[in-house]
């Protein structure tokens, strides 16, 4: 098992070594987290003690609601763009050929290439939550951490499927990723990142359930802010499992096809 993890770990070490070598950028990312939290903290003070009925299922506090939304919505971006981003960056850097000729299979390269982005996002989420609790008074006393971790894992796998399809577009067409464009836009709009989906009319709420991020954020908020039991969170967990079961194999199949096409037309390393 540990031996199998060496490859993903090697990618993470490579990426952190690379990122840490850009010291200013590395430190500025942490400053960015703090200032974005500050923005939402003061925004939440605007609402002050006003009771917003839409926020009641999540504890009623807008700051807590939006903090979880902002923190975890980072995964949408990572899932959607990191795999495609690493592929196109490896094409531009000239490292893709060197990677593709190694004895490591494409699914492992894909998964491992984006792993550091997920690890990095997880660190950012942790910083968000720690700062939220320590500085801004976020209450997570009743949080169901194991269930939240499960939802997080399933969110990554289900969102990752969409990301791999985006990477397939990049591999095949080099630029232009209609799925990523639509998916990111809809997830930001319908997923309930900075407002609850309950504000939508009924038909639009139903549409929002077609996106994994809706189940992910809702389940995550209920697990962390309200301490829901795993049984109570089962609808969200099952929905994310379904997305994973459909999207992951489909996306890997499409990516293999895209690689075959690139190998046929000789554009594997072109961008």
């Amino acid at each position, binding site marked *: 098992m540990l031996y199998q993890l060496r490859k993903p770990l090697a990618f993470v070490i*490579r990426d952190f070594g690379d990122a840490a070598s850009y010291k200013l950028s590395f430190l500025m990312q942490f400053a960015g987290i703090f200032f974005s939290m500050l923005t939402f903290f003061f925004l939440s003070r605007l609402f002050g003690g006003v009771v917003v009925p839409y926020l009641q299922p999540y504890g009623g506090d807008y700051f807590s609601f939006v903090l979880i939304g902002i923190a975890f919505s980072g995964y949408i971006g990572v899932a959607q763009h990191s795999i495609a981003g690493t592929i196109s960056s490896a094409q531009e850097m*000239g490292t893709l050929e060197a990677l593709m000729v190694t004895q490591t299979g494409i699914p492992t390269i894909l998964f491992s290439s984006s792993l550091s982005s997920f690890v990095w996002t997880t660190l950012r989420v942790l910083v968000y939550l720690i700062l939220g609790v320590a500085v801004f008074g976020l209450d997570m006393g009743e949080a169901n951490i194991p269930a939240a971790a499960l939802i997080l894992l399933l969110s990554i796998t289900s969102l990752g499927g969409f990301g791999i399809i985006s990477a397939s577009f990049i591999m095949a067409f080099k630029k232009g990723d209609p799925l990523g464009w639509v998916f990111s836009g809809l997830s930001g709009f319908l997923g309930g990142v900075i407002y609850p989906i309950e504000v939508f009319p009924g038909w639009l709420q139903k549409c929002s359930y077609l996106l994994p991020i809706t189940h992910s954020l809702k389940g995550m908020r209920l697990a962390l802010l309200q301490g829901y039991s795993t049984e109570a969170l089962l609808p969200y967990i099952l929905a994310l499992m379904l997305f994973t079961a459909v999207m992951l194999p489909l996306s890997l199949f499409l990516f293999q096809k895209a690689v075959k096409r690139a190998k046929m037309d000789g554009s594997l390393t072109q961008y």
Partner: protein
Amino acid sequence: MSYIIETFNLTKKYPQIKSYQEIIIHPFQKREITALDGINIRVKRGEVFGLLGPNGAGKTTLIKTLCTLLLPNEGTALVNGYDIVREEQEVKESIGYVVNDERSFYWRLTGKQNLEFFAILNNLGPNRAQRRIEEVLRLVGLETNGDKRVKDYSTGMKQKLAIARGMLSDPEVLFLDEPTRSLDPMIASSLREFIRRSIVEEGGKTVFLSTHNLAEAEDLCDRLAIIDRGEIKACGTLEEMKALLDKRKRYLIELEKPARGFIEGLKGVFPFMVKGTLPGGGIAIEVTVDERWRVSQVIEAIVGHGGKVVTCSPMGRTLEEIFSRVTSNRSSGEGVEGE
């Protein structure tokens, strides 16, 4: 005979990008350019095989196809006995590919960190990886520079690091795509020496390299294939190519100082070319002999006209001549096939 690489009518075509006008007028018409046209070559174990050709001849396409980075449209190839299409993983386990792009490393990481990363991807266990990294760094002479960041390497050092990476998994065949392309002559020469001595003679590996440097091909390769416009025009050892390509032989004949009117008298007897005068007034002529004019008949004719032959020696063809001849016979289809 044990062949480590065999290709069977290997053909590769690239689709060409159509203009908007063509997309509208002929939406379903495919435009393709043939990069490899029915390539048949065989490479022996433990030899340095050179693929020689002008820019755009198909050298890189052939190497990338053999390294499984491209799929052929027709035909196939065996590398170390494995089919490049159906047994991609086994082929990858048998080869090392030295990418000629110096950007193919992570420049912010050290040379050693880069090698550690690629060692893991090539399934080397931790202990073997460390041992092998030390070995290959020593092999390419970078043992004292392993902890430097790649961005601080010279072009020659990056090329050596690329070879070290290609050698990490101790492959049977090493593919090098124009390995000395951007190196200065001194470093290029030492790299050729390194390939010949350390990789082939001591390591027992097979090297398949592409180059458009004729001197490099002549100096380094046991056998050569000349490729042009996707077709193999000639293949074999340099001597085989010389012999097969040109049935006619050229001789340089040195004569004692000839009498007045001697040269004019020979004209029309057999074709020759005056190459220059010698110390003491003698002259050197170049004669091309064939079935009609054998060298003995030429000498008899010279003597018959009152000339005195001092020396008569065969002239060898250079690789440059062979290369320009086979690549200039593009339309005639003339070529030389070896193994």
